C-alpha cells in the first residue's frame, strides 16, 4: 500500500533537502507532510482550485498534481519562501493591509501566482491580474481586495525600483 520509498532531493526556498518519500507522493504531500512546510494548502487535491500553487523555477504550478519527482532539479518556492530576511514580500504586506486574505486559505496559492505575475510585469493591468489569478479560486473575497493588494504591491515595488 505505502508503495516504495525513495530519496528525493529538492531545493525548496533556497534550501537543499533530501528526504525519503513514498514514490507516489505529490509535491504537495511532500511539502506539507514530509517537510512540514504547511503554508501551501490543499482544497481539492486534483487540479481544480489553485490552493496548492507553488513556483517551480518561478512558474506557478499545482503541487497537488505534480509528482514529487518532477520537482527534482528545479527550485521550489512556496509562500514561506516569498518573504526575505528583512520582512514580508510587499505582496504579503499589501494583502494584509488591503484585507485581501479573509480566511486565508487560498492566499498562499494566490500569492505565488501574483508573485510570478509581478516578476513578469511590474505594472500589471487589472485584466492581466485577473488572467494571472484565473486558476486560483477564492471563496471569501470576491477577488476585489486581492486586485487592490496586487496593484498596491506593484506600485510599491516599482517605486522601490
Amino acid at each position, binding site marked *: *500500500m505505502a508503495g516504495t520509498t525513495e530519496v528525493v532531493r529538492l531545493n525548496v526556498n533556497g534550501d537543499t533537502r533530501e528526504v525519503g518519500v513514498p514514490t507516489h507522493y505529490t509535491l504537495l504531500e511532500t511539502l506539507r507532510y514530509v517537510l512540514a512546510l504547511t503554508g501551501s494548502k490543499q482544497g481539492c487535491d486534483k487540479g481544480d482550485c489553485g490552493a496548492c500553487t507553488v513556483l517551480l523555477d518561478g512558474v506557478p504550478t499545482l503541487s497537488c498534481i505534480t509528482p514529487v519527482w518532477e520537482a527534482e532539479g528545479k527550485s521550489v518556492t512556496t509562500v514561506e519562501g516569498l518573504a526575505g530576511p528583512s520582512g514580508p514580500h510587499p505582496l504579503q504586506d499589501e494583502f*494584509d493591509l488591503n484585507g485581501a486574505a479573509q480566511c486565508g486559505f487560498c492566499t498562499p496559492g494566490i500569492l505565488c501566482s501574483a508573485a510570478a505575475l509581478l516578476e513578469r510585469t511590474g505594472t500589471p493591468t487589472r485584466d492581466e491580474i485577473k488572467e494571472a489569478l484565473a486558476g486560483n479560486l477564492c471563496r471569501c473575497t470576491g477577488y476585489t481586495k486581492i486586485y487592490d493588494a496586487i496593484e498596491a504591491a506593484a506600485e510599491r515595488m516599482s517605486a522601490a525600483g
Partner: protein
Amino acid sequence: MSHKSKSDLRLIGKSQRKIEGLAKSTGRAVYTDDLAFPGMLHGKILRSPHPHARILSVDVSKAEALPGVHAVVTGADMPVPYGIIPWTPDEYPLCVDRVRYIGDGVAAVAAVDEDTALAALELIDVEYEELPAFFDPVDAVEADGSTPFIHDAKKPGWNGNVTKKVKLEFGDVEELMDSSAVVVEDDYFFEGTTHTPIEPHCAIGMWEPDVVDGAGHGGAGTVVGGSIAAEGAIEGSSIVRGSPPGARNAAASADGQTATASPAKASAKPGPGGPAAPPGAEATNRGKLTVWSATQVPHYLHRELSRVLDVDSARVRVIQPLVGGAFGGKSEPFDLEFCVGALAMKTGRPVKILYTREEVFYAHRGRHPFHMRYRTGCDQEGKLQSVDAKILLDGGAYASFGLVTTYYSGQLLCAPYAIPAYRFDSTRVYTNKPACGPKRGHGSVQPRFAFEVQLDRLAERVGLDPIEFRRRNFIGEHTRTINELRITSNGFLECLEAVERASGWSKKFRAMPFGRGIGVAGSTYISGTNYPIYPNEMPQSAVQMQIDRSGRVAVFSGASEIGQGCDTLVAQIAAEELGIPIDYVRVLRGDTDFTPVDLGAYSSRVTFMLGNAAIDAARKLRKLVIDAVADHWEVKSGEVLLAGGYALWVPDTSRQMPVREAFNLAEARHGALGATGSYNTPKDVHGEYRGGTIGASPAYSFTAHVAEVEVDPDTGVVHVKSIWVAHDCGRALNPILVEGQMEGSAYMGFGEALMEQQIYKDADHGRAGLHDAPSLLDYRIPTALDTPELESLIVESIDPEGPYGAKEAGEGPLHPSIPAIANAIYDAVGVRMTRLPFSAPSVWRGLNVARENGTLGKPAAPSRQGVEV
C-alpha cells in the same frame, strides 16, 4: 447603550490590519490539517453507496486484521442520536441500522497512513437491504407509508418524511389580496447550492485516559504549556504508546478493563471495581478528550462530543485552529469529529481525518432547494397590501438546522417593506440526498429571490420605477414588523439611494439597448438570533480580559475566527477602550479549556454579541484603571482619559502618564487586573406566538443591490458586469473588513445566481441520488474572470444596541444579488427568470419561449400614469 461620535473613536471605524493577517499571508497561520502529533494515525470513513438501505450487518474483522490498522469503529460504537437542534436529534455519527443518502458514513478506520486506511475500508463487508428512496420533495410529502419513510413518523399516522411544517398568518391576507389593485402570482424554484469553503473539513482527536488508580481529575490534569495550544505541542503526560500486535484495541484503558476499546460498550455503567465518578460527572469514559476541528461552532461541538462519546464535558476540550472558510458549512458537528474522538479513545493515539473534497459535498448542509409559490398584491399607488407564500423545502436526509430553516423561510421577509398582511405555509421534507442546512443567509435567500422579483413585477404593473416602488414601501425605523419583530435602526432608504446614484440608475433603467439591463433588489437580515440553540439563560457571548504589567492586554475569546475578522474586532475594542496600541493586545482564542463560551459563528451574531461582550469587559477594566489614576492625581474619574498609550487629564492633557504606569497603579490598588464581559440579548423583541422567537434579533441589517448585466440573445449567456452593494451595517467598526464581507457576499450570491447547483443524478442518468459531480471542477464557483466588478457602499445607521452602533455585515449583503440579477435580465431582454440558476441553457430556453410568445425585447419604461390592471 450610548454611542460615541465618530470623532471620539480612535481605532474603531478605521480600517485595521487583521491581527493574524501577516500570519495568513506568509504561510505561518495554522489550520487544522497543518497540525501533526507524534504517533498520529490517519482515519478514513466508509460511506454508503446506496441512497436508502437497511444495514443488515457490518463485518470489520478483515479490516482490523490488516497490518497498519489500529482500530475500526461502526455505528454500533456510538449509538447516540444527535442533531444541532435539540428537538430533532435524528442522525448518528455513523449510521446504526439505516443509511439515508449516498455518502452517509458507516464505519471508520484509523491506520498508520491514509493509504492503509483506504485499503482497510475495502475490506469492510457491509450487507445492505436496499429500500425504495425519495428524491423528489413532492413525492416525499405525498408518501403514504407504503414504503418506509426516511425517518420514523413522530406520531402514528404522520408522514415520517416531514421534518417540520409551519403555517403563520398575520393580518387578513385574503381580504387585502381581494382589495388589491394588482396581484401577481408565480412559482419560483431555488436550486440547492453548497458552501465550498476552500478548506475541507478536518479534525484531530486525542485521548488521555485516566491512570488506573486515578479517580478522575488527578491523573489527567493538563498543564497548558505554550500560549496557544493549537500550535501543536502535546501537553501534560503523554499516553501515546506503541500498539503491540493483538493489544492495540486495549490501549488506553481507563479502568483496567478493556471495555474502553469501544466507547459504546463503555457507556454501560462502570464495571465493579471501577473508580467512583467525581461529583457531577456521570460519564463513563474516564479521561480527557481533545478534538481540534475546523468548526465554526466549538461550543456546540463540545456539548455533542461529551454527550455522544460519553465523556464528562468538563474533560472534553475543543480547539479551533484558524478556519479556512465556512459560510455555514461547518456549523454543526460532523461524522469526522466523532470518529476522531472514538478512534483516539480506542487506540490511545491521536487520529486525524481530513475530508476529501468529495466528502465535503456529501457533508453539505448547504442551501435547501425551495419550491415556492408567491402571491403579492399592492394598491394603485404601489403600496404593498398582502403577501401569501407556500414553500416546500427539500431538506435531504437529516434535520440539521431544518426546523429553523423552515421558520426563516417565512419569518425574515417582513422588512424592509411594510406588509399589512402576510401568510406563509412552509413544509420541510426529508429526501434521500445529503442534508441541507444553513448557508450564508440561512433560509431567507430563497424567499427573498422570489419576493423581490414579485416586487419588480408589481412595480412594472403600477407603472413605477422599481426603486421608487421600494421606497414607498419602506417600513421605517424603530418599529415592529407585521410578524411583531422589533426593528431598531434602519438605513435601507440610504442604501437604495446609494446604489441608485453609484450605478447611474436613472440613465440606465429601461434605457439601455436590448441585451443590456439593470435591476435592483433589497433585503434585511438578523444580527444574531435572539435565542440560543438550546434553551438557557446564560450569555450568548463572553470574553475575558487581563492586563499585564508590561502594558499588554490578553483577551480570551471563544468566538470563531472563520475569516471574518472577529479576533481583530476584540483586539480593536480592547485597544480602543484601554488606550493602547492594537499590537499590545494578544487574542487567545478558540479553545474551550480557557476561553469563555461564544455560541459560534452563525446567524451573523459575532460582531454584535462578541463586540458587546468585549466592550463590557474592557470598560470594567478601564474603570479600575481610571479610578486608580484619578485617585493618584486627586482629580475626578470623569476627567481621566485613556488614549494613544497614555492616561490623560482631560482639562489639561499635558498632565499624563504612560498607560503602563496607569495599569501598574491600578494593579497596586486592586490586585491582578482581569475582567469578564458578556452579552445577552434583549428578551422583548420577538412575536408573542408559537415560533415568534425565531427570526427575532436584537438588530437587523439592510441591503440594496443594483446589478448590471449583458445577455447574449443567441446563447443565453449572462454576463454580470457590475454589482453595487449598499449595506447598512450600523457602524463599520473596521471598514475594510466590512467591505470584504459585502464583496464576498455579493460574489457568492452572483455564483448562485449564474452557475452553482448541488444536484443529483436521476434514474435516467446513471443512478438516482448520486451527486451530480462532487468536485470543484463541476461544482462551479466563479473565477476571477467571471466575477463582476463589485462596488461596496457602506451605510451607517448607528444602531442603539450594537457595539459602537454596529450590526451585521456577513450574510445580509448576499440576499439581493440574485433577484437584482434576475430583474436586470428582465430589463435586458424581457425574460423573467423564475428558476435558479440563470445558466446559459436555462436563459436560452427562456429567450426561446419569449421569442415564440412575442415578448422578447426591451420592456416598456415605467409610465406612472395610470395602472394597467
